[in-house]
């Protein structure tokens, strides 16, 4: 399967050795221990991580270092996980987050508060 992993590089050695699998809405994706969820998704061409609450717009990785909140996803049933900095573990289940995730997770587990980013 085609992916965007960079195994040949003039400076950097490929130093990931432990392979793992995460699931994006039941689709298995191969990654390596030490990579973030966000990076593994990008490697498989998945870039649409979140849908905004009111305007239903797509969002993906923006800052990449845990500052901006654009990459919130549902990870193993928990909403508002910043996947750009969250390291992946084997068997993690990742879902696109729609707004505060209430429709998916129910009011108890959804993220509290309004989505201010529209």
């Amino acid at each position, binding site marked *: 399967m085609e992916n965007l992993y960079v*195994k040949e*590089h003039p400076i*950097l050695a*490929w130093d990931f050795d432990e392979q793992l699998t995460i699931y994006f809405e039941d689709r298995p994706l191969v990654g390596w221990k030490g990579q973030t969820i966000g990076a*593994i998704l*990008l490697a498989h061409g998945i870039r649409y991580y979140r849908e905004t609450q009111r305007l239903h717009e*797509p969002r993906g990785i923006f*800052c990449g270092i845990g500052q901006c909140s654009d990459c919130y996803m549902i990870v193993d049933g928990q909403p508002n996980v910043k996947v750009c*900095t969250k390291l992946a573990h084997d068997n993690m289940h990742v879902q696109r987050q729609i707004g505060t995730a209430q429709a998916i997770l129910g009011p108890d587990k959804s993220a509290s508060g309004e989505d201010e980013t529209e």
Partner: protein
Amino acid sequence: MKTYDAVVIGAGPAGLGAAVEIAKAGGTTLLIDENERPGGQLFKQIHKFFGSKEHYAGTRGYEIGQMLLREAEEARVDIRLNTRVWGIFPDRTVVATDDNRSFSCRGRTIILATGASENALSFPGSTLPGVMTAGAAQTVANLYHVLPGKRILMVGSGNVGVIVAYQLLQAGARIEAVIDVTDQVTGYEVHARKIKRAGVPVLLRTTIKEAWGDKEVEGAILHRVDDHFKPIPGTEWRIQADTICLAVGLTPRLELAAISGCASAYNPVLGGMLPLHTTTMQTLQEGIFVAGDLAGIEEASTALDEGRVAGLQAALDLGLGETDTLEDLLRQGQERLTSLRQGPFGEHRQRAKECIWQLASERNHRPASTIINDGGKERKA
């Protein structure tokens, strides 16, 4: 509640430099960072640094990071990762959370090394997945060995723009163009030449009008600008790109300095609002120091030496270690900073820093050797 000689917030080059110096002087040090790993943005810097041998010239950023982590380990710096500071109180109580529980601790001194955020740029389509900061693309490519996209448009030809464009080329991406609204490349010529040699079009007096695509970026509409940076009608054209990287400057992360009550000032050369500080990185709040990009956007090597200077001054104020040795090291650190701020780019930053130091000294009526209020129990440094 535990009290440390220093609580250092941010484990990038500045925070690591500060924590190492205080710990080496014999101080108890807690270094807090919100990320899963220490090092800040050093580990994604795969290019060789400039400067002299003392500035680790010729060494790649991640190698400097590895050296710093070894130094921190040898100096027995206590590092707490995955931890976000959300409060700093007037008695220098620091409150932090690891998302499961909160804890508080006190710092006889606090060093803020919270770094910077990359600036966003607003245009129709700028929120589409595939539009990201240049730093995000650099992180994904260099830390996780994943190409953020195959066809990339770089907006901004400053150092970040040209360096990241080259590194994405090295990782195997195609750079459709590097564009800049000004009429010259603003990054170092050494880096700009590398992308030009690789045949990347560098389009000046050009900016992005909008990004297009259904659910994610498929391309961009560019247009030319006149002498006043106003778009010239009729010059629009479309290019295809699956990724648009924004390299349009950085802004100091002022939040913690602001809630600590540190007086700040605006300086466009240094990235915007930043805390006023002295030549030894003391803010106008007793016992609170700043270092690195928070104290003005510069480079990683500058951040490291500012951290060391802040740490050494804090150690002196606390009465730790041998005064003569610490003062020697402090002077050496300041000399390295002066030499890092030479040359056509550095001189601007030197002058801007002098402005900040001047403002700080005008507003600071306390003697250079500060009195640290230790929870009601005053102690002279």
